[in-house]
């Protein structure tokens, strides 16, 4: 077996008094994909940043091809970290981005032709169909990611570290990424791959390292582990039942929300569905099918040009979130950081923002707020040592719990939750599933939009499938299974409006 290209021995890291990594050993060989998995807060990001030279280790040694290196030298060695948030200049072209900071020159002037040729060549080698002259702001998320990789590959790329690269990609885009990773691997690049999606880890990686609470739990060959075993190593216990048993409402449960013929220009055409009391209604579809846009249209966050909305049989006018809240409808955005939480503000202010009117009309009752925060921390199991920290300092899972708690402050009777578990760890996922299950049992109607098939199948009592802006089917009972959903989502089946499919 080959010697490792990059190795870390006994890496520890402390932030002030808090230790987040405890003597972790990690290595990756040339031409290998080594997956790093663990729950949020397990120390994956910290380890990754140390490997890529963004952070110094408190203890431990880093070696590249056997020779120790320090934080400053990582980039020169060809160790590149690709973040979830890309580091691209939006207004510049692909080629300008690829060469940003190390432009090719002829004398004082830029050598545009050489750069274009080189960019073409790099993109070609990666078989990535992006025009070097296109502006980055016009590219899709997956294309941007390719540009990031091309940027890395245009240098002497030896070690590529990727942080949840598929979190923002569709399945077909992920497939393209995997092809690209395999090609890099064939070229002898060492790849460190961080993901929450265990099926992907299984598919793409050669070895898996599991971290839990900053400790190295295991490093094993991927072939020796199945997904259950990985999950078990991550959480330290077996996940026998991820989803609580379904408990659908009686068939004659009253319809609490009726949406009729809603059109959101550019996104959704003529969408209708009913939601019953105590029901979990799943919304499936590919990314861009218009599910989020439909909900935002219903809530008045986007312009809708047609359609009526009825609550308990009576028509309601909803022009903005205020109206929706008054009608007892609450929405949790999929964009937790951009639209859900004020990352720079403490937990308390985030918690009460939506329901601030309930904490005093004229003056805010801060004591009531504190009490609400204490309750929320307890009820939603928000894990934070000091509630005075800004929301942005929480891990993804804790942020999601805070967002849930914030939404529940208005005591809605309808909860629409968009991608409830995006980017959060297995343990927290399960807590959120249990919570949604409980909501439904208490008679609250729940809409779950999710791109994770397992989530839809595991949670929903009925499933609405959308495809490019229209509802292509509403599935019930045994029809709620992967093939049926995929067929409706991809247009192989069910063009009839609102055809109810049950098997």
């Amino acid at each position, binding site marked *: 077996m080959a010697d490792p290209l990059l190795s870390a021995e006994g890496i520890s890291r402390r932030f002030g008094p808090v230790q987040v990594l405890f003597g972790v050993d990690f290595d990756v060989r040339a031409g290998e994909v080594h997956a790093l998995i663990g729950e949020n807060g397990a120390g994956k990001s910290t380890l990754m940043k140390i490997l890529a030279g963004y952070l110094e280790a408190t203890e431990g040694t880093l070696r590249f091809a056997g020779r120790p290196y320090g934080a400053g030298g990582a980039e020169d060695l060809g160790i590149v970290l690709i973040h979830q948030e890309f580091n691209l200049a939006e207004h510049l072209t692909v080629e300008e981005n690829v060469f940003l900071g190390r432009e090719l020159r002829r004398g004082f002037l830029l050598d545009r032709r050489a750069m274009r040729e080189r960019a073409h060549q790099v993109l070609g080698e990666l078989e990535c169909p992006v025009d070097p002259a296109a502006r980055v702001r016009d590219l899709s998320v997956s294309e941007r990611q390719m540009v990031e990789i091309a940027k890395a590959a245009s240098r002497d790329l030896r070690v590529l570290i990727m942080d949840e690269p598929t979190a923002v990609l569709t399945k077909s885009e992920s497939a393209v990424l995997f092809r690209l990773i395999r090609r890099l691997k064939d070229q002898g690049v060492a790849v460190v791959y961080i993901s929450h999606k265990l099926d992907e880890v299984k598919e793409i990686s050669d070895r898996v390292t599991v971290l839990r609470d900053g400790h190295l739990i295991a490093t094993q060959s991927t072939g020796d582990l199945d997904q259950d075993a990985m999950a078990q190593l991550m959480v330290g216990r077996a996940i026998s039942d991820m989803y609580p048993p379904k408990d659908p409402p009686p068939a004659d449960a009253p319809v609490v929300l009726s949406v009729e013929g809603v059109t959101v220009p550019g996104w959704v055409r003529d969408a209708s569905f009913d939601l019953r009391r105590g029901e979990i209604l799943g919304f499936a579809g590919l990314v861009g099918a218009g599910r989020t846009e439909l909900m935002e249209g219903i809530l008045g966050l986007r312009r809708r040009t047609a359609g009526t909305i009825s609550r308990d049989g009576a028509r309601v006018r909803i022009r903005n979130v205020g109206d929706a809240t008054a009608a007892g409808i609450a929405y949790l955005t999929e964009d937790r950081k951009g639209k859900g939480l004020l990352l720079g503000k403490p937990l308390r202010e985030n918690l009460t923002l939506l329901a601030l009117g309930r904490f005093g009309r004229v003056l805010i009752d801060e004591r009531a707020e504190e009490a609400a925060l204490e309750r929320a921390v307890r009820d939603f199991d928000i894990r934070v040592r000091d509630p005075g920290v800004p929301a942005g*300092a929480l891990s993804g899972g804790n942020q999601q719990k805070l967002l849930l708690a*914030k939404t529940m402050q208005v005591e809605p009777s309808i909860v629409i939750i968009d991608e409830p578990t995006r980017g959060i760890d297995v343990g927290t996922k399960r807590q959120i599933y249990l919570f949604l299950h409980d909501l439904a049992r208490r008679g609250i109607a729940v809409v779950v939009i999710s791109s994770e098939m397992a989530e839809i199948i595991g949670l929903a009592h009925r499933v609405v499938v959308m495809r490019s802006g229209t509802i292509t089917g509403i599935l019930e009972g045994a029809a709620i299974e992967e093939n049926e959903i995929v067929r409706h989502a991809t247009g192989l089946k069910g063009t009839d409006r609102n055809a109810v499919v049950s098997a």
Partner: protein
Amino acid sequence: MQSSAPDTARRPSAGLDLKVYGPFLALAALILLGVLVNPVFLSPGNIINVLTRTAFIGIIAVGMTFVITTGNIDLSVGSMAAFAAGVAIVAMNALAGPLGSGWAVVLAGVAVALAFSLAAGFLNGILVTKGRIEAFIVTLGTMGIFRSLVTYLADGGTLTLDSTIRATYRPVYYGGLFGISYPILLFFAVAAVGALIMYRTPFGRYCAAIGSNEDVARYSAIKVDRVKLLAFVFQGLCVALAVIVYVPRLGSASATTGLLWELEAIAAVIIGGTMLKGGHGRVWGTVAGAVILTLIDNILNLTGAISVYLNGAIQGVIIIVAVLLQRSGASRR
């Protein structure tokens, strides 16, 4: 249930403290410097003088704190003040016939100043929210408009308040309670009310939320346009209050009245620790910032060691240093 590890993040104590207390520490240092330089500095006369002169900018800056907190800016406050003062003077002179020269006419003038400033603030706010134009552009435009209108009204010269009316109105600037002038009392009243609104009411919370992230505010059922509009109207109210105590000082208004007040007000807000990009307002910081700006001038006057012509340079340095300190405080985590 076992799940994600507790978050290890902590409050950035050292950085935050500097941000909150920085302006007050700077103020204390300046006062100490003043005492060392000249014992006259601490005389009641000098203190009253300094604070009275601070009052105009200070009152306007409290309003500016709200506008900046929502992520906007108002460049028009200086010319708005000049315009409101000019219109109020013209109105009082015109009404001297029917109303005489007693308090009735002064109250009429006050009402006119209030009406014009509130309308001007409303105009700025409507153009920013409904017109969807950057606040910088809108208020750059209205700044020119108000300035030009007051110049036109004064026909390029000076609008002077009728001397008998001025005699009635005079105590509003020169008088006071318990030896504290009315402008100072008004300044602290405005600041106290402003602080209460900023820290303890939903409106203040909403201003900060909008300045932090407008999308989050919208998704949190906040009426973003209405809150922004109200912030501009509140700014208009603050300008009116400043004008009400300013007019009796000189009893006149001209093309140069309130010149560069907008920049001084913005400087006071920034020195006070409010971030220019919005999201976090500090009303008492603004008060400290406004006092710091006047103190520099005062201390230079008292020493004679450095030319008073360098006042602007020193103020400039202080603004830049204030922002540098804020930044290093923020990046420490």
